[in-house]
C-alpha cells in the first residue's frame, strides 16, 4: 500500500516537473530569437562605431590618444556582445568553458 501510494505521488510530481518545459514550448525559443536579433543588431552597431571612430582618427578629427581610448572601450563592449551571442547560440565560449 505504502509502495503503491508513494509510486503514484512520485510519478505525479516527476511528471509535472518533466512536462513543464513541454508545456512552455515556444516561449523560450521566442525569447532566444528576440535576444539573438537584438544582440546581432547591437553587434553591427558596435562594429559601425568602431569603424567610424577609425575614420574620424584618419581624418584627423580624433587625436591618437583619444582614438586609442575610444577604440579600446568600443572593442571591450563589442567583445561582451560577442560573448553574449555565443551564450545564446549555445556555442562553447571560445577558450573553453571551465567554470
Amino acid at each position, binding site marked *: 500500500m505504502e509502495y503503491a501510494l508513494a509510486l503514484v505521488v512520485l510519478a505525479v510530481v516527476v511528471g509535472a516537473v518533466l512536462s513543464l*518545459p513541454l508545456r512552455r514550448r515556444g516561449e523560450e525559443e521566442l525569447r532566444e530569437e528576440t535576444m539573438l536579433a537584438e544582440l546581432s543588431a547591437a553587434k553591427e552597431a558596435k562594429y559601425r562605431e568602431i569603424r567610424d571612430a577609425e575614420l574620424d582618427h584618419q581624418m584627423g578629427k580624433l587625436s591618437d590618444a583619444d582614438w586609442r581610448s575610444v577604440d579600446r572601450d568600443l572593442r571591450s563592449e563589442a567583445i561582451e556582445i560577442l560573448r553574449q551571442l555565443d551564450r545564446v547560440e549555445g556555442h*562553447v565560449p571560445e577558450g573553453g568553458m571551465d*567554470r
Partner: protein
Amino acid sequence: MAGVGSACLAIALLTALYAAAASVFGARAGRREWVTSGRRAIYCVATLCIVAFGLLEAAFLRSDFSYALVAEGSSTDTPTFYKVTALWATQDGSLLLWATLLSLFASTVLFLTRRSLRDIAPYATAVLGCVAAFFLLLMVGWENPFDTLATPPLEGAGLNPLLRHPAMMIHPPMLYTGYVGFSIPFAFAIGALVAGRTGADWIRATRRFALIAWTFLGTGIMLGALWSYTELGWGGYWAWDPVENASLMPWLVGTAFLHSIMVQEKRGMLKIWNVSLICATFTLALLGTFLVRSGILSSIHAFGASTIGVQFLIFIGLVIALSAGLIIARLPQLRSEAKLDSLLSREAFFLLNNLVLVGLCLVIMWGTFFPLISEAITGTQASVGPPWFNRLVTPLALVLVLLTGIGPVLAWRRFTPAALWRVLWPPVSAAALALVLLLAFTNAADSPASLAMFCLVAFVLVVVGMELARGTKARRTMTGESWPRSLARLTGRNRRRYGGYLAHAGIAVLFLGVAASSAFLEQRDVRLKPGDTFEVDGYRVTYREATAKLGGDSAGTGAPISFGAVLDVRKHGKHFVMRPSRNYYSSGDASLGTISRFFEGEATSEVDVRWGLKRDLWLAVRPDIGSLEKPIQEADRKFADSPGDVQALIVAALAERYRRDPPPAAFRAIASPLVMWIWIGGAIVVLGALVAAWPSPEARLRRVRSLYSARLGRELSRA
C-alpha cells in the same frame, strides 16, 4: 519507509530511461523543449536517489532490522561512524551509492553545459541516463536495498570487522566517485561521436571532471593501500590483488587520457586515441565495480556475492560494442588536423608516455585475469603472484618516471637535441650525483632497480624545481615582483601546468617510497613470552606484558574482546612503547557454545606502527588463545543458559586469565625505510591535481578575451 525507498528507485529508473529517450528525440527532431525536459529528468533522478540514500542511511542509524540490508550489515553495537558507512559495505548499498554519485555528477555537468554544446549535450544526457538506468535496474530487479524481512531479528550481523577502519570506510566512496566521474567525459565523447562534433569542445567541457575523477580514484587507491598496511596484518600496502588491480587499471588509462587530451587541444591530433582511451577508462571503471561485487576472482577485498555478474558482463559488452562501433563509424571525422613534426617534441613524448601507461595496464590486466584465462584453457585455475607483476611492471615504471621528468622540459612541435641537452644537463647531473652518493654511502646497489629509481626520482625533482625557478625568474624580470610573489602569481596564473608538475613531483616521491620500502625492508616473525627480546633492523624489542580488554578497543571498532601486547622498543638510546592487538568479534552461529561464540567469530589485527620519515616500525601480534580452549568449553557446559550479564562476567574472567598468564604469542615486526614518503607523495599528487583542477577565472577570462579580440579583428577587417 521501505516502500517509499523502493518507489523512489522504480520512478528513478523510469525517469532515467525517459531522460535518454527525450534527449535523443529532442536532438533528432530539433525540439529543444524535449532536450530541456530530458536534462531535468536527470535532476529528478538525482533527487530521487538522494531521497532513497537518505532513507536507507536513516534505517542504518536507527538500526531498523526490518530492512534486510541493515540486518545483514549493521548491529546495535556497531559504532555510529561505522553505521553510517555500513551502507556502502553492502552490495545493494554500493549500487545505490554508484547511482546517487552518478546522477549528482551528471546533473552538475548538464547544468554547467545547459547553454552550450547544444549538439553534443543531448546525446551525453542519453548516455548518462542509460548508465544510471542500468544501476537502477540492478537494484529494482535483483538487489533492492529496501527489501524487508517478515520477522526482523533482534540483532544484526554487524559490519564485517575487516571493514572497521576509517580509511576503508572513506575508500569506497572515493573509488566510486572516481569511477563515476569518468562516466562524464565518456558520455560527452560518445555525444561528440554521435553528433559528429569531434573537435576539442567535449574535452574542454569535461576535462575538469576527468581530473576530479582521476584525483578521487587515486585517493581511493592510496586509502586502500593504507588500509592494507594498517589493518590486514601482513605488513604490505600492495599485493597485486585482483581488486587492487581493478582500481589501478582505469587510473592508469585515465592518466594517459589526461595527458593525451592536451595534444588534441593544442594540435588537433590523437582524436581516435582520446575517444578510445576514455571509452577504455569507463569500461575499466565498470570492470572494477564488477570485480569487487561479483567475486569471480578470489580477493581479500571482494566483499560481494555473485548475483549480478551476468548483468554487469552484458552491460560492459554493450558499452564496448557501441563505443567501438561509433569510433569506427566516425573514423573519417577523427583524422588528425596536424602531423607529428618531430620525435623530439612534447606531443611525441606524451604519446610515448601513453604507450607506457597503456602497456602497464595491459600487463596488469593479463596478470589479473590469468586465473580465468588459465581455467578456460587448461581447466585449472592458476594465478601469477607479486614476483611476476614486479618483474614486468618495474621496468615500465622506471621508463614512466623518466618520461615524467623529460616531458615538462620539452616544447610543443619540435625541440633540437642541443636545446634538450641545455635543459637536461642539470637534472642529469643531479641523477649522476645521486648515483655516486648512493653507491658510496648506502647499500642501494643491492637492488639495481631501486638504485635506478632513486636516480630517476632525483632527475624528476630537479626538473620540476628548475621549471618553477625558470618561470619565476622570467616573471620577476618582466614584473619586478619579489621571488615569493612571482612564484605565487606564476602558479596561480598557470594552474594547469604547475599543478601537473606538482603531481609529477608527487609521483616521483611516491616511487621513492615504493622502491626503498619494497627492496630494503627487514622482517622478523617470532614467538615470544613476556620478558623475551628480539632485534629487527637495530630495534631491540621486548615483550613486556599481555593485555586483554573487554569493549573499548584502541581503534574504536566496537570489538567486544581485544587481546594484545605491550612492547618496549629501544634504538640508539631512545625508548618507546608499542601496543599491537588483535580484536575478536562474536559469532552469530547459534550452534556454538554460549561462551565460545565470543571467541569464534572474525578476528582482526590492530597493528601498531611507529611512523617515521626515515623508516616505519610495524608490529602485529597474534595471541595464542588455544590455552583458553579448555576453560571455554567448560564454561560452555556450565553456563549454557546463563543470562547476558553472567556471560559477560565469564568472558571477563577468561580475558583476565589470559592477561595474567599469557602463552607465547606470535609477532611480526617489519622495519621499512621511507614508507611514509608513499603517503606524502600521494598527498602531493592530490594537491597538484587540485591546483590543476581549481578554477582560474582570471586566466580563463584573459584567454577568452584574447580569442574574442582576434575574432573581432578578423570580422572588422572582413567588412
